[in-house]
């Protein structure tokens, strides 16, 4: 018994002393989930290739969750948000520099391939009995979706059709791809890059669509500020922009 206790104590002390090593060449990027395919497959590796000895570590989540993490943990070098609102929050606390809008993303309606509810336009989301899957309020794509429904003048009827408020874009796509819901609203980038999603897109006309603008910035107090500005420059530069366009994003105007 004694030996076990001492062993455990020793373990605690050992691991307590380890941990913080020399991480100067590690860049931590907090990015909205919708950027995950483009960032992990293309932009991260390309940036690492240009900066030898650098490792880019990504943390993908909903922008609101990321903003909260940055404010409580303060470990991020770069923040790429899916909405200005959450970048504003980080700009207030702890602050940002090099802030730039770098891409835009449009909303699109999705249905399973067999389109069981016969959705052909945004107005059809108001039809009785349609099982509508949206992201929750407070999640950027969820707020934008509700805005688009309001723009189309069907907010009340469509919101009565909501069967679930999902935590993020990927969950909305998953519920539609598996055929559980009849239709949902996500970003165009959620279905263009993620390749094998078995969903069909129905366009939302521009005059009711909500265009999301994505800002990117260096977080104040970044452990690796110089590298962080270079990453921001890379994403907003021609190579980064070309990659993002391949993944369904539009350039920021």
């Amino acid at each position, binding site marked *: 018994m*004694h030996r076990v*206790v*001492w062993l*455990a*104590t020793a373990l*605690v002390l050992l691991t307590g002393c380890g941990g913080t090593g020399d991480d100067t060449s590690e860049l931590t990027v907090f990015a909205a989930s919708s950027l995950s395919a483009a960032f992990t497959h293309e932009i991260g590796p390309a940036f690492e290739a240009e900066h030898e000895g650098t490792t880019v570590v990504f943390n993908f989540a909903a922008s*609101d969750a990321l903003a909260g993490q940055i404010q409580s943990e303060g470990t991020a070098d770069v923040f790429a948000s899916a909405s200005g609102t959450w970048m504003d929050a980080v700009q207030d606390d702890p602050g940002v520099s090099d802030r730039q809008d770098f891409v835009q993303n449009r909303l699109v309606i999705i249905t*399973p391939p067999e389109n069981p509810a016969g959705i052909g336009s945004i107005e059809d989301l108001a039809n009785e009995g349609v*099982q509508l*899957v949206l992201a*929750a*309020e*407070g*999640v950027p794509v969820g707020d934008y979706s509700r805005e688009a429904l309001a723009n189309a003048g069907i907010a009340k009827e469509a919101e009565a059709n*909501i*069967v*679930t*408020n*999902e*935590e993020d874009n990927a*969950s909305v796509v998953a*519920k539609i791809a*598996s*055929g*559980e*819901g009849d239709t949902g609203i996500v970003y165009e980038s959620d279905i263009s890059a993620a390749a094998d999603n078995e969903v069909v897109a129905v366009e939302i006309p521009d005059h009711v669509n909500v265009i999301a603008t994505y800002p990117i910035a260096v977080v104040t107090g970044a452990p690796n500020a110089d590298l962080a500005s270079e990453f921001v420059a890379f994403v907003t530069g021609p190579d980064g922009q070309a990659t993002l366009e391949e993944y369904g994003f539009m350039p920021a105007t």
Partner: protein
Amino acid sequence: MRSRTPLPLWILAGFGAVFVSLPLVALLMRAPWDDIAGSLSGAGASEALRLSVVVSLTATALSLLLGVPLAWILARSRIPGRSVLRAIVVLPIVLPPVVGGIGLLFALGRGGVVGQWLYSMLGLQLTFTTWGAILATTFVSMPLVVLATEAGLRSIDRRYEQAASALGASPRYSIRRVVLPMLGPQLAAGAVLAWARALGEFGATITFAGNLAGRTQTLPLAVYETRLTDPGGAIFLSLILVVLSIAVLVAMRDRITRAR
């Protein structure tokens, strides 16, 4: 310090206790107490609380209904592949609940292996319904009933049953009057653990049943959603969960310890 408990034990136990209680204290400290009424009504607390009670209690009842017979088979029968069966039945304890939810979706969802049949033949859809939330919750909490009951059954001296049948009791009568009373504390422990697990269930429910206020949005889901729009309300919803759980765990503590 009059006890002979070695000092390192005290230190580690102290760290353990602080580690577990600190988040609770932090929740209490961050709660906007001056606006408790507004926060609770704004966060739809009563609706989520009602749903949580309904879902967790029904799931516990289902867990007992199916879990106790399962435990009986595992403890008493000689079926081949029993250890494999036990591993599968207990798996949800270690499985990430999201994985359970995805599995349920593929099995019982509208397009699932069994679910598509339910939907086309009976017009029955479980996803996005309260029954869906109950099934997802039962999936994760039933193994706790099975484990506790099986352990209890194995600890019962079978000579009591043999004596009962020698005295002319039918198998059913001896289960009802001999085995079940002796099993009581273990059954209660299993039921409480299952209920506590059911009350906190999040991953399987949101993955399989979705998240809609009044239908599938239990307290944990309500906490998760309102933390975005109403952080103060989310804290109070969390505290309701904490108070509810502590009350039952404290009340049941004696029974659980006696069961050992």
